[in-house]
């Protein structure tokens, strides 16, 4: 079955991982396409791989969201070896007893759905790594 990543910066395959556009001048990293670097203003980027493990630096447990979004879910901010990544914290009960600041997490993939052509979209999240 064909698979497509939810976002361009998610690379699927045997070893799913995130990539970023890194400014070759100042090292700032961007998950989206940038016309120039928001940090230094230069316009040359290279692709770099982001570490797949990290520390949960912040989170919230969302109980009210836009229509079509399943709640509750845990939205988090993960420090992946110096690069901050946004993602849901998955494979853990969504409550403050099980999700704690500073916990170790690792990248994992999450199914998003399948379109009429049979292509599966795949997203990502972070799960407890301990």
């Amino acid at each position, binding site marked *: 079955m064909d698979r497509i990543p939810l976002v361009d910066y998610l690379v699927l395959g045997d070893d799913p991982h995130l990539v970023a556009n890194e400014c070759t001048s100042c090292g700032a990293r961007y998950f*989206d396409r940038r016309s120039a670097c928001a940090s230094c203003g230069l316009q040359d980027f290279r692709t770099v791989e982001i570490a797949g493990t990290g520390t949960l630096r912040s989170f919230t447990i*969302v109980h009210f*969201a836009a229509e079509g979004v399943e709640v509750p879910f845990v939205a988090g901010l993960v420090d992946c070896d110096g690069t901050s990544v946004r993602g849901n914290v998955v494979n853990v009960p969504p409550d403050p007893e099980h999700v704690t600041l500073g916990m170790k997490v690792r990248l994992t993939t999450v199914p998003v759905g399948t379109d009429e052509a049979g292509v599966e979209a795949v997203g990502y999240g972070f799960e407890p790594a301990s």
Partner: protein
Amino acid sequence: MAENVWILGIHMTNFGKHRDKDILDLGSEAAIGALQDAGVGIKDIGVLGAGNLMGRGGFGQLLQKQIGQTGIPVYNVTNACATGATALRVAIMAVKAGETDMGLAVGVEKLAGAGLLSGNVRAAEGGHWVRDGRYGAVAPLDGRVGTETMPGVFAQIGMEYGHRYGGADFELFAGISEKNHAHSTLNPKAAYQKRFTLDEIMNDMMIAYPNTRPMCSANCDGAAAAVVVSEAKLRTLSLEQQRRAVKISASVLTSDPYQEACQVLPDVNTLTRQAAATAYEQAGIGPEDLDLVELHDCFATAELVHYDNLSLCEPGGAVDFFKSGAPWRDGRTPVNVSGGLQSKGHPISATGIANIWEIATHLRGEAGERQIADAKVGMAHVIGLGSACGVHVLEKSAL
């Protein structure tokens, strides 16, 4: 050196549900109120800064058709929740630039019953996946890659502070909300004037942990307006006008400088710290000189980080600052004695002028039951995601 600019008149409508009033009714009420408070007429005004986010555009000119079309330059501005402060800044800049000696700024919003304001409204596509936007996303990211809801974003902003410095738990955040709701009981213009216990707040409906419903800013309708005047012009006006005028000792607008994590979680800290530092320098005062502060408590989790960002406490000391009782109205640095956005309400574009109205009203000694005794200096802070931060320092008239 450009000359000083003063607030000559200022007005805020009641915040809440105004079923039978449109944005023009509310904007007119605020504008006419500010003109009357200033003791001037629309023909004395040389520039209009106008803020409204949710309407159909061109608010400033629509307002002129209700209060007087005099041909003056109109600047319709937007800066998310800092829209009102931005409108005020434009009026101030026009005066400082010597383009006029008197300006009007108006902010208005109809938001009652608006529900959750969420970022991502892209409809899921039928048929087949299509990559869209600068992330090449095949589906909406809200809920799939973190959250774009405001309560959730600001929850993470508060939790991150807790991670860095410790001590910021659910109860602490709820306590901040308890304070603001308690303050609101003295503010007849607040949308909600109800005191809550800590238990009530913590056991209310959870929106985005740790923010429960009473810890979120209240969507409501309202407007606020201010008349600003050059110091030279003010000195030609009546003694009563000079006595009630409020000096704008600092007026600062910033955006967020690049920071490592700002692409994944809005950084409301750096731009606020820079705005505050610049404001203290402009005003020639320090945080210890502030008799009261209105800061942008769009969520209880936000208020905590701004104690630190505005240097009301030592770096990293916001939790201790709150626990000491300092930001209560009888504390060392009263914060949000209006009740804050959580109880006074948050009609977006009005907020950045309404907080200045609150400070000005205390400096004039006209705050009634909730008057902070002998208030001489105050600070008003507002932040809109994107981001834009407005900080104003106001001083009681010594003219």
